[in-house]
């Protein structure tokens, strides 16, 4: 019987397999950041263990880093202490670190791919649930807890039971205005926040094959929001073109050997998935969330649902709680929801294409009065590229704030937060209660919807912008 992509990558990393035990899996790349690593390094110290493979380990600072005044000391002493702890740990153990101010600093899931470290057929872990992002390259990539971070630092392996596999097959053409973000939000709404629990998802089909690498990363990034262990997309020419020439991509004979291997990384025709979901791309539309988990979403043209319409008692109760927290009324048109803040950034939508997409809408337009718009590039490299294309000027001329790289308002560990009761349209990945600041209300959207919403002051898609404008032309 044939094997799925996930099964092939899994099998290629089994260090030890024994009856009645989880497989011991080798980890090719371990990404670290300041939030989930300090207790792991402490554990190593207590046990007198070194980092086994410094050459497969890399750290960056992202969750706590400010996006303003980065040349000044960090105001919050606890954030500063956490960053200093990472710096000390990396220095003590010899781990490569890209700290705040370094040209390679940025959100860990933006940095790995742009350095060319994330490669097809690798296993990638990080103490961060959005590690699923790296699956866009045909890597098996998943988030782990701090105990597992310590385990990987000490052994470069993890004991794991093999998850089941689920195919998410998306055929056809995505309509104009429909982005990867809309697609993944629609998938999560369809299967639910627990629908992928126990599975590795493989996104496939003609609509997926046409997506750019960055769009594929947006999709795989949010696999965790459907409860999945990981999400993967089979590598192809798009993947190889993206990787070629990057700092850590193979070269010469190694490149040829790598491509030969990478070409084998697709699910066999006779592979059997444990489950499959089929989606018709043509039926999709711009999608936004109305509730407090990423599965509570609907097309932008829809209304806020009536909790009474849910048959399942638990879902009904969850919808009631969500509307109460979000300050919404059943039946209200989603387009009528006004926002205070628009956030463009995060490991979901903080890459150069995302910034280009948002800028193309904002070019020649203005952010609505009373709306604050933050644009936070996913990494310093993304920021530099955006500046070289003049995107920063487009944002600032429109009235948006152009910030330094980091996780920022996706989770508000730094000063970028919503005030209680404030409402955002956010290109990030989680609309949980208080996620972007205590009492903050989050609507998850694509970069295009974020930009159109900023201009109109209420949830909107670019097609709602009928105003005349005088684009300076995004360069």
């Amino acid at each position, binding site marked *: 019987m044939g094997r799925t992509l996930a099964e092939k990558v899994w099998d290629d990393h089994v260090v030890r397999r024994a009856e009645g035990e989880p497989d011991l899996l080798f980890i090719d790349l371990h990404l670290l950041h300041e939030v989930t690593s300090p207790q792991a390094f402490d554990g190593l110290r207590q046990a007198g263990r070194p980092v086994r493979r410094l050459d497969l380990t890399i750290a960056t600072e992202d969750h706590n880093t400010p996006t303003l005044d980065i040349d000044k000391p960090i105001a919050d002493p606890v954030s500063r202490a956490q960053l200093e702890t990472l710096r000390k740990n990396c220095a003590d153990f010899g781990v490569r670190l890209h700290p705040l101010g370094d040209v390679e600093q940025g959100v860990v899931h933006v940095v790995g791919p742009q350095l060319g470290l994330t490669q097809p057929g690798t296993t990638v872990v990080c103490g961060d649930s959005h590690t699923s992002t790296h699956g866009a390259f045909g890597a098996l990539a998943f988030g782990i807890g701090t105990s597992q971070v310590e385990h990987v630092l000490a052994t470069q392996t993890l004991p794991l039971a093999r998850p089941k596999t689920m195919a998410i097959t998306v055929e056809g053409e995505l309509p104009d205005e429909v982005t990867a973000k809309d697609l993944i939000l629609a998938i999560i709404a369809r299967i639910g926040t*627990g629908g992928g629990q126990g599975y590795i998802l493989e996104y496939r089909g003609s609509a997926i094959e046409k997506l750019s690498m960055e769009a594929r990363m947006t999709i795989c990034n949010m696999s965790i929001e459907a409860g999945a262990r990981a999400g993967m997309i089979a590598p192809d020419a798009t993947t190889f073109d993206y990787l070629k020439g990057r700092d850590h991509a193979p070269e010469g004979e190694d490149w040829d050997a790598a491509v030969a291997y990478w070409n084998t990384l697709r699910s066999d025709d006779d592979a059997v998935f444990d489950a499959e979901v089929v989606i018709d791309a043509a039926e999709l539309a711009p999608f936004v969330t109305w509730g407090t988990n990423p599965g509570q979403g609907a097309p932008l043209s829809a209304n806020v649902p009536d909790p009474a319409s849910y048959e399942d008692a638990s879902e009904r109760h969850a919808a009631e709680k969500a509307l109460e927290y979000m300050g919404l009324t059943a039946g209200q048109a989603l387009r009528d929801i006004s926002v205070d803040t628009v956030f463009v950034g995060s490991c979901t939508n903080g890459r150069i294409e995302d910034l280009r997409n948002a800028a193309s809408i904002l070019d020649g337009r203005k952010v609505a009065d009373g709306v604050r718009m933050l644009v936070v590039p996913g990494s310093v490299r993304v920021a530099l590229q955006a500046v070289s294309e003049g995107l920063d000027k487009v944002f600032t001329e429109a009235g948006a704030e152009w910030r330094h790289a980091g996780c920022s308002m996706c989770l508000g560990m730094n000063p970028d937060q919503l005030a209680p009761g404030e409402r955002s349209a956010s290109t990030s990945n989680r609309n949980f209660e208080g996620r972007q600041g205590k009492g903050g209300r989050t609507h998850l959207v694509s970069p295009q919807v974020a930009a159109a919403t900023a201009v109109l002051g209420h949830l909107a898609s670019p097609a709602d912008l009928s105003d005349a404008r005088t684009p300076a032309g995004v360069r």
Partner: protein
Amino acid sequence: MEAFTTHTGRAVPLRRSNVDTDQIIPAHWLKKVTRDGFEDGLFEAWRKDENFVLNRPERQGASVLVAGPDFGTGSSREHAVWALQNFGFKAVVSSRFADIFRGNSLKNGLLTVVLEQKVVDALWELTEADPTAEVTVDLEARQVRAEGITADFELDENARWRLLNGLDDISLTLQNEADIAAYEASRPAFKPRTIAA
């Protein structure tokens, strides 16, 4: 890790689904660099409401959390497990847990017990009607018992063995040093490296 064999204690019925780890421990608590001191951050936003179940006087000292489906979704933060343990919880019951949360729990000796929703409903009804009702989570027998309720649960034998004996995963793995070294020697040259070896 502390071993877990069996535990009996009063319960906290938490009638909410999709309790994400941002609710269990909000992000600003994640700046701490220790594994302890998280008890005050547990369900911090909800505890501002004096009627929230965890604040009720009759729930003080309870040690078994009985939650709705999809408990522990979202962020991988192990701080969520530490917060529950720091507060005094020994076991969490739900009809479905998020994978990463469950893995983190088992690494720390916090037992996550998967029971059918109808059993969870019965535990809710029992412990809401009688806050002094005790719930026993017996890992040796893989069984949850309370007045009028006996329910078996599943946990794979390897995880159970590690919990019962409080075994350290890293030490277990390092017993396979020869296998790891052999695998490392066989890795292709084209695999990425962050620094020159």
